[in-house]
């Protein structure tokens, strides 16, 4: 029986997480009260989650994959088995896709809130966004500065 692990993710907005799962076409359940997860043999486990992807939708021999809302963030609850490897046939690959798409959705959402139009360009596993102001304003250009921020 595979142990479960909790992984603190960058996911903080449950609503956006659910939108992301819908966008990716991943069947899921959403619960106000955390519900138990089940292992690959159908045995109920001690771990609980608010957003649950049942094992049949995760991969062959996989366990349920969940997200527990702690109030501050959503912690991924994933079995050790599903943590191995990052291909799409296991939970880790699925979690990676979810986190990536969630981040992209957040970029679009936050950019729009700040008045930017976002052009999305998919470049292999990387997604680029070119953000331009919706309402141009004037500025005096005194020079050229290139600034990078890497987090």
């Amino acid at each position, binding site marked *: 029986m595979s142990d479960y692990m909790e992984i*603190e993710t*960058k996911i903080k907005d449950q609503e956006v997480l659910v939108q992301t799962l819908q966008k990716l076409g991943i069947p899921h359940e959403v619960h106000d009260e955390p519900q138990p997860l089940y292992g690959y043999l159908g045995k109920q486990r001690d771990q609980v989650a608010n957003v649950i992807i049942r094992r049949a939708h995760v991969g062959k021999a996989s366990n349920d994959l969940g997200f527990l809302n702690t109030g501050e963030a959503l912690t991924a609850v994933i079995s050790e088995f599903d943590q191995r490897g990052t291909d799409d046939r296991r939970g880790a690959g699925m979690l990676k896709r979810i*986190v990536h798409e969630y981040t992209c959705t957040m970029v679009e959402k936050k950019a729009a809130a700040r008045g930017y139009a976002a052009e999305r360009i998919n470049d292999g596993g990387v997604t680029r966004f070119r953000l331009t102001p919706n309402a141009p304003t*004037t*500025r005096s250009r005194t020079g050229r*500065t*290139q600034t990078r921020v890497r987090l």
Partner: protein
Amino acid sequence: MDGMTIEIVVDENGNISGEVEDAVGAECLGELDALLADLGTVTKHVRTADFHKVNVRTTGRIRNQAKA
């Protein structure tokens, strides 16, 4: 900030980086910085069995790369 373009890159692991070109430094840097701050940056892995931290990544830094 007419003509300003911000580029945000999301890698396959969901890590974010950003870049501003053709911009008046401080103002645009502030915009990019604020946008990235909105997006949050903390990633932490915690193993539940023994609460052993296996990876903590909370770094963030800003550097000016070029000025002409």
